[in-house]
């Protein structure tokens, strides 16, 4: 059986859910964060290691709905190896997309940079699910900020 054409459960999302990328906590890391979505109980623990102003590595573990888990997997694919500034810009753009209430106009440029993450566009119509899609992204952002802070105070 397949899902409806306009489903928010794009095959790509189901695939990431069933086989999440960068799943598992990395051993060497600069910061670890634990984020929870209190309304649905989704959880993610996420570790990052920065090097030369870029996200050198990222690993995560989580529990929750397919949207939260797949979105974290897609995010990890996207940001690992990217300069921090670029990762933050991606996060900004994804946040905007999620807050569009289904009215986002995706440009080709978006598809180029957000890659698999554009599959989550449909989620933006469901305010209750937006937080799920954002969970991993927000955790990544906090972890990066946290790493920076540790560096500064080190």
């Amino acid at each position: 059986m397949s899902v409806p054409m306009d489903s928010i459960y794009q095959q790509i999302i189901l695939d990431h859910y069933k086989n999440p990328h960068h799943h598992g906590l990395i051993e060497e890391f600069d910061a670890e964060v634990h984020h929870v979505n209190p309304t649905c109980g989704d959880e993610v623990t996420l570790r990052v290691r920065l090097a030369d102003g870029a996200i050198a590595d990222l690993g995560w573990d989580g529990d929750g709905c397919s949207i939260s888990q797949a979105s974290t997997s897609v995010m990890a694919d996207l940001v690992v190896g990217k300069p921090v500034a670029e990762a933050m810009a991606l996060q900004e753009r994804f946040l905007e997309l999620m807050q569009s209430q289904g009215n986002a106009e995706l440009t080709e440029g978006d598809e180029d940079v957000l890659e698999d993450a554009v599959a989550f566009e449909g989620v933006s119509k469901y305010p209750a699910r937006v937080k799920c899609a954002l969970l991993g992204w927000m955790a990544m952002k906090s972890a990066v900020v946290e790493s920076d802070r540790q560096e500064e105070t080190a």
Partner: protein
Amino acid sequence: MPFDVEAVRKDFPILAREVHGVPLVYLDSANTSQKPQVVLDTLTDFYANHNANVARAVHTLGSEATNAFEAARGKLAAFVNAPDRNEIVFTKNSSEALNLVAYALSNAATTIGAERFRIGPGDEIVVTEMEHHSNLVPWQLLCQRTGATFRWLRIGDTGPDGGRLVEDEIDTVITERTRVVAFVHQSNALGTINPVSRLVARARAVGALTVVDASQSAPHLPLDVQALGADFVAFTGHKMYGPTGVGVLWGRYDLLAGLPPFLGGGEMIETVDMTGTTFAAPPHRFEAGTPMIAQAVGLGAAVDYLSALGMENVAAHEHALLEYALPRLAEVEGLRIIGPATAVDRGATISFTLAGVHPHDVAQLLDEGGIAVRAGHHCARPVCVRYGIPATTRASFGVYTTTEEIDALVAGVRRVGEVFR
């Protein structure tokens, strides 16, 4: 007269809607119910022909509005068999009704004449582990304000046909120290109908006040506050086919008359002076400011609608749906019913989990097939904690629910299992 669900469905305009290109199957009535046309017409007629503020106005519109508002109070009183229409206090929802009691009690601390209601350290407030947050947090906050101790009756067995209070603990948890026992009539998370008379009898024996949260029973079964025997009963308009923004607190008149006010403002006063104010008699004492006039009138229309159907018939219809649904759902692979697995002492609200699929995904994918159910902790998080699960999916029925819709639900849940496995 047999209950004609097809005729009932025609009264609800939203049921003609499609979502995702398929007809809507609305199975989320425990969250909020849909509204019959007569309620919408009543609201429009009020605003378009009789709108004015109540109580204060001497003009024709004001008199019409006041008569309509007070007539609604009378209808609500009759609907729950209240002995006195002045025992019906209009609030914005159940939550406000429950908070009203909790705040009036803590306000007794500084009110002369209300000494008998004072609560303090050493006193205990008892709720149950299956309360909606709206009948749990107000009492936690009351304990915080007063120093009283918060206690609760636990949910026992969580297996099939579990999901009920540990009856043995009623006598040990409710003691001479208990001042208030607040409990849900029908659980919104489990469907369980609690043993009201057992709880009220014990509370009365120890001299505690009883507060019944009837948010989930008022729409579904004949509610008789005199038969319940409790001191306060709260319910909410939007779940009983009425407008949003209106709820009801019923209270015994002598208790309402003895309690200090909660919200201060227009209409709840007797006379105001810069140096001191005296308060009106119930119900007005507890209705500060301009009330939800149109909404109360609309709720009056909703209870007229329910009474015309007959609450006995409504209860029988929903019980039949429940008996139809429970075994069919239980057959679905990986499905576990959270709450009593049989239709005994149980309302037509069914929570469940599906192995390997998060409840939010179940609900979301059902929605894509036109089926609206709820997923989450249903504002009763301690229930999920008790069952050791993050959330459930919940289907809940109403006057307009059909067995065909239940078939669609069962088929839909099966499909969800296939997609995610």
